[in-house]
């Protein structure tokens, strides 16, 4: 790789041991991908919670602090695995709760801004067209690349932390024009009136093309999609297809037309998604034993507008006794939801709001499932339906209003 004099100085230890190790690691990753150089990043978003890091990761972070690691660009954190206000009720392990607290303190000593959110793009930082960033989780990356036209690869926790310490990342993947060109057009003929429908589109396209470098180009939709709709589309494409970018003609900044989005590339195929295709997705789920006692609105965390919609749908209704309904959001959205009465409306209906977490990464989720004898999990998020399987849930995707009905009636259809 071609390294600048400054980068060579970092590798020589001129800025300390932590950035030296970080850059050495980044160069190794860059070499794998054939990166020619490093590019400066304007913002870093990293995953760092005790559930995924484990004791090994905690020890690593402790050592980083010990050797003087400090972020040199603004750096935020993704959703975590412990809700400190609800952890006792959830039966989360006190030892792991203590470790999560400790981890947060170590992060702050490195100048990490612990926002604990997977919707940083809706609430914290919106990079501009062409800005290089180093973000994870996947939902944040696909949103940054697609909707903002910023440039990021999926950066896992250690890679994002390395970028925070060096202020740069290897130039490969979506940092390069050649990987940002569309691969195939997808005509959207379906109505797509609910967020779950957008997740279903992501499932249909993602499942059939499990390729990080496949970039679908959506076109032909009857109206302009909202930020929340693009969020669910992106989160599902990233989850089912491991995809890091999409174009949406007339909506995303690098797609004024299908032709421009494809950038001269001959499409590998052409897809059309109809109302019938979306209906088939909802029909495809095995309802198992019919258990309807667990409803989850999470993955990604809810925006303020999603909180408002849920508050409206739950107004005057109650979650069925014996059932549990969880909503996850970040502290900023929760504070506004409290001020605006949405949180109260949800809590009056018996909904549990979790702050700063995502449901599928909750510490102790498998034991929680066993203790409650949950077999099914119902959600409006296609992403969480895809990924909660590792905890042995049978997960079922339903539209938002149907989810509220199921939570209140206990009847799974």
């Amino acid at each position, binding site marked *: 790789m071609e390294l600048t004099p400054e980068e060579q100085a970092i590798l020589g230890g001129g800025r300390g041991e932590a950035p030296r190790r970080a850059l050495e690691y980044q160069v190794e990753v860059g070499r*794998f991908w054939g990166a020619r150089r490093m590019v400066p990043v304007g913002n870093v978003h990293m995953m760092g919670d005790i559930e995924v890091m484990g004791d090994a990761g905690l020890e690593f972070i402790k050592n980083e602090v010990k050797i003087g690691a400090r972020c040199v660009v603004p750096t935020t954190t993704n959703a975590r695995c412990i809700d400190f206000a609800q952890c006792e009720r959830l039966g989360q392990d006190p030892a792991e709760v203590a470790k999560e607290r400790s981890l947060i303190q170590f992060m702050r000593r490195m100048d990490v801004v612990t926002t604990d959110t997977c919707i940083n793009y809706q609430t914290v930082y919106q990079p501009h067209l062409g800005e290089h960033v180093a973000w994870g989780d996947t939902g944040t990356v696909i949103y940054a690349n697609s909707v903002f036209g910023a440039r990021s690869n999926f950066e*896992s926790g*250690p*890679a994002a932390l390395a970028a925070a310490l060096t202020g740069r990342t290897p130039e490969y993947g979506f940092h390069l024009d050649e990987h940002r060109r569309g691969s195939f057009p997808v005509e959207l003929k379906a109505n797509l009136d609910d967020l779950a429908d957008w997740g279903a589109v992501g499932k249909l396209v993602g499942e059939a093309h499990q390729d990080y470098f496949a970039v679908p180009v959506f076109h032909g939709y009857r109206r302009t999609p909202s930020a929340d709709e693009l969020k669910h589309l992106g989160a599902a494409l990233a989850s089912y297809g*491991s995809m890091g970018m999409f174009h949406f003609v007339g909506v995303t900044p690098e797609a004024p037309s299908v032709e421009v989005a494809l950038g001269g590339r001959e499409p590998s195929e052409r897809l059309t998604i109809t109302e019938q295709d979306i209906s088939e997705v909802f029909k495809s789920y095995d309802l198992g034993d019919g258990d309807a006692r667990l409803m989850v609105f999470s993955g990604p965390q809810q925006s303020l507008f999603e909180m408002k919609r849920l508050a409206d749908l739950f107004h005057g209704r109650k979650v069925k006794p014996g059932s549990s309904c969880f909503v996850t959001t970040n502290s900023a959205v929760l504070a506004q939801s409290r001020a605006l009465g949405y949180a109260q409306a949800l809590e009056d209906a018996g909904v549990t709001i979790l702050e700063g977490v995502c449901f599928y990464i909750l510490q102790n989720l498998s034991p929680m499932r066993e203790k409650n004898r949950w077999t099914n999990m119902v959600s409006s998020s296609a992403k969480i339906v895809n990924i909660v399987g*590792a905890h042995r849930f049978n997960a079922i995707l339903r539209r938002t209003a149907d989810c509220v009905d199921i939570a209140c009636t206990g009847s799974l259809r």
Partner: protein
Amino acid sequence: MKQIQVDQAYGPVVEGEALVSEEGFSPRYDLDRWSGLITRPGHKLEGASIVDKVCFFPTAKGGIAAGWAFYDIKWKKIAPKAFVFGVTNPVMVQGAVFAGIPITAGWNPHPRRVVRTGDWVRVDPGRRLIEVLR
């Protein structure tokens, strides 16, 4: 000797028993990170252990979590010897490099034609080569 040429590779030479999957892999979605068993219901390797194996996966799925997860399973001594991917994504590579687990991507011929689960294989990232020893 049967061989597979790979396009991209990182890590030292290792040998181990092959675990060949027809389905992609995510350490977050598919794996129990305490036992090293693939636990997602319906995964084609459900119930199989990745511990000390040379794991052949056609694709990488999902998530950012691999970065910490690979380091975590290495620390718990339940990591595979190497990951051999058909198509991979940055997270798998970042995670493997961070944990010091050899990783390769791109293959010719397809492992289906030359290697079976249980075969003993050598992964040689420097030569971008996988050899089926028996």
